[in-house]
């Protein structure tokens, strides 16, 4: 086979440097006009690393949720999961833009053209080992029941965190969190109501919901141990120690599972997060190949 032309090849030459970068959001800087000065006493590198963790969680879970588009059990549910993903994508953009604003750049920034905003470079040009997402969001969807259990766990954790981050000493992070709270409330309620229907539904839906619970539960193990960055930022009044989220998250999950007539597994043995340290399984690499492949093949494409 000789050189294969694709429709995307045309993008590389379309506008001679005049057009918008084809794959991102360069037309719309999410923090345009927001004062991004870092308050005194906050280490910008730590703040950036923290925003990356929270932004990556949102970006990766968004990508997982959008994998249901064209596959969900009914159209309304497809739209619902895509809407949850869209909210998370917005949160990811804000958080990655905040990380970029304090100087977090990716190793392979040079692959991207200079005109690409930092948030897009962070999303498209980092390798898996540069991602700081948790194992909970990275795991494959499984069936619909497992997807709902994961959405319940992830939104409960994130809602508990964002509720507290509204008081962060970084005003940008506090504003992003405050904006996310009502969104995450919708996601958690949606997942909780689905789990009631599945758990307390037919024997088959109950069986599969319980299998989803059993598959997701071990992924909770590394969500409640602070990294060094979180410990330092918690002391500085910027972040929240994830251990402080445990009781609330555990309580929410137990309430929903019991109402859904599902068995609450034993709490997993807590361990430090591998994902926050950049250690991920092959699932993340495959997910990022989907997310990033086109942009990396045509890094200078415009439209």
């Amino acid at each position, binding site marked *: 086979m000789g050189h294969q032309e694709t429709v995307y090849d045309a993008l590389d030459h379309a506008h001679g440097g005049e057009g918008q970068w084809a794959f991102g*959001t360069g*037309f*719309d800087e*999410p*923090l*345009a*006009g*927001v004062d991004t000065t870092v308050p005194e006493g906050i280490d910008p590198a730590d703040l950036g690393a923290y925003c990356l963790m929270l932004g990556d969680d949102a970006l990766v879970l968004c990508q997982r949720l959008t994998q249901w588009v064209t596959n969900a059990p009914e159209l*309304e*549910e497809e*739209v*619902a999961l*895509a*809407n*949850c993903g*869209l*909210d*998370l*994508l*917005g*949160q990811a*953009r*804000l958080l990655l833009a905040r990380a970029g604003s304090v100087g977090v750049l990716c190793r392979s920034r040079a692959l991207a053209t200079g005109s690409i905003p930092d948030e897009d470079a962070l999303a498209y040009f980092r390798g898996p080992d540069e991602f700081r997402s948790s194992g909970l969001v990275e795991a494959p969807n499984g069936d619909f029941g497992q997807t709902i259990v994961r959405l319940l766990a992830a939104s409960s954790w994130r*809602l*508990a965190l964002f*509720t507290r981050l509204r008081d962060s000493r970084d*005003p*940008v992070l*506090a*504003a*992003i969190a*405050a*904006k*996310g*709270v*009502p*969104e995450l*409330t*919708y996601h*958690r*309620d*949606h997942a*909780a*109501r689905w789990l*009631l229907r599945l758990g307390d539904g037919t024997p088959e839906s109950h069986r599969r919901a319980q299998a989803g619970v059993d598959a997701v539960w071990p992924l909770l193990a590394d969500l409640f141990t602070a990294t060094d960055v979180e410990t330092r930022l918690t002391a500085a009044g910027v972040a929240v120690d994830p251990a402080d989220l445990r009781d*609330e998250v555990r309580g*929410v999950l137990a*309430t*929903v599972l019991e*109402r859904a007539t599902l068995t609450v597994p034993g709490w997993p043995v807590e361990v430090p997060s591998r994902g926050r340290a950049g250690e991920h399984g092959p699932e993340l690499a495959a997910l990022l190949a989907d997310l990033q492949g086109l942009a990396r093949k045509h890094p200078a494409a415009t439209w």
Partner: protein
Amino acid sequence: MTAALTGQSGHFGRLADARAVAETVTDPELPMLTLADLGVLRDVRDEGGTVVVEITPTYSGCPAMGVMRADLVHALHRAGFADVDVRTVLSPAWSTDWISEAGRHKLAAGGIAPPGHAPVRTAGPVPLQLGPSRRTATCPQCGSADTEETSEFSGTACKALRRCRACLEPFEHVKEI
């Protein structure tokens, strides 16, 4: 160099003009509403001759912000304001309570049920809602209050899908946030 819009008493009118122009710009996804009706337009002011416009996103992932910004800049340029700076404000977070009375009437006239009061925001943990949605909405087609929610999510982030039990028509509802 443009003279400061409010530098002298005679220029106050220019700022009022700029505000009036900004207030005519409509939402790309709810075109029956202006950004002012929607509560997305937060401020129009003069900073040393530059018209500074502040807008706030409805949802974090609102994909319309870029279009709103471009529409505002375009409308103000067309009205003769050369220096325009559209800025995002994130705090306080947008609430459907900011949709004006006029905006609510326009939504209903356009076949979209306007939101009720937003839930009260408290400081502590957000209570889990396990029952069916407590939201209610009046059918924008026939006016019946006998309607049901079919999905909490719809074609845009800010709306839910409902169905009227009286006239059987489906309709969208701007959900409270």
